[in-house]
């Protein structure tokens, strides 16, 4: 089986509407009530997905342009059949409403939440989208 390619688009810290890994809200996110870093999260994911997936994490930055982030996000939006086009002027707002965004082989499978390793494994295997968590804020 070909390896699956997982892309994770992160918003600014404390900005996502739910599931913040940095404690931005009080709901605890999708994985734990303890704040975890993306590296720790990737380790968790690799416990079930090692050998069958490759990961790429994209982060936005205030210090440099976010052209690669924007290009990659537009690619997955297009491949997912969405007509929204991201540019520098709407990037922050869109991410505030949708980050973190997970895509498998270029198609969006999860938004607004960090799925746990089982949810992500199931989504990778079945291609089914992970339900959006109830808005917490």
């Amino acid at each position: 089986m070909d390896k699956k390619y997982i892309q994770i688009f992160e918003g600014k810290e404390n900005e996502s509407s739910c599931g913040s890994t940095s404690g931005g809200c009080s709901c605890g996110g999708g994985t734990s009530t303890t704040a975890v870093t993306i590296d720790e999260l990737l380790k968790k994911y690799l416990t079930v997905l090692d050998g069958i997936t490759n990961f790429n994490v994209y982060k936005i930055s205030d210090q440099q342009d976010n052209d690669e982030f924007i290009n990659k996000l537009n690619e997955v939006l297009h491949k997912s059949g969405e007509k929204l086009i991201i540019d520098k002027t709407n990037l922050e707002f869109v991410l505030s409403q949708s980050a973190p965004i997970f895509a498998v082989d270029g198609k969006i499978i999860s938004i607004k939440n960090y799925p746990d390793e089982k949810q992500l494994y199931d989504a990778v295997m079945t291609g089914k989208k992970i339900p959006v968590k109830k808005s917490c804020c």
Partner: protein
Amino acid sequence: MIDQNTNTVKSILNNIFDSVGIADKESFKNAPDKYHPKNILEGFESVIVYAQGNKNSSERDMGSFSDLWGSLAAQNEVVKFLESLGYKSVIISGTSRSVSLVKMCILAGIGELSPVNSLVIKGLGLTASLATIITEAPLIPDEEISGVCIKCMKCMDVCPATDIAYQRNPDKCGCGKCRNICPV
């Protein structure tokens, strides 16, 4: 021109949202400074408000638009359209604490307050998710409406804050019982 711009804005948003309304700057003359749209955009002329009902969604979807990408695309299209005309415009999502979306909806003729102080919208009851675009563009405002709430008081009957609901005790509010029972 204002007619045309108003129609264009409403046409874009009506493709996605269940209810769209507009309030002009004059409508906010008595609005408290703390929640005034000028805090977001000093030179604003209009506030465009839109709502989507969640009556057929599970409770987990409450508070967010069911078609997130479609709703973002529509909002983005409106902002791009207005900015192409030279009018700065800002999208305010439902989680903003710096303006009162409910008050904006009332002024924009989308709905009115229910007995439990939630926004009731025709056909959507108390289930709507809300957002707004504050813009420098002058647009034709809608009239405030009344008579949407049928005063059946079912929301009051199930509200755990019953006798103090009018004071909106924040510790008691948020159970969602009123949303589920509203017949509007």
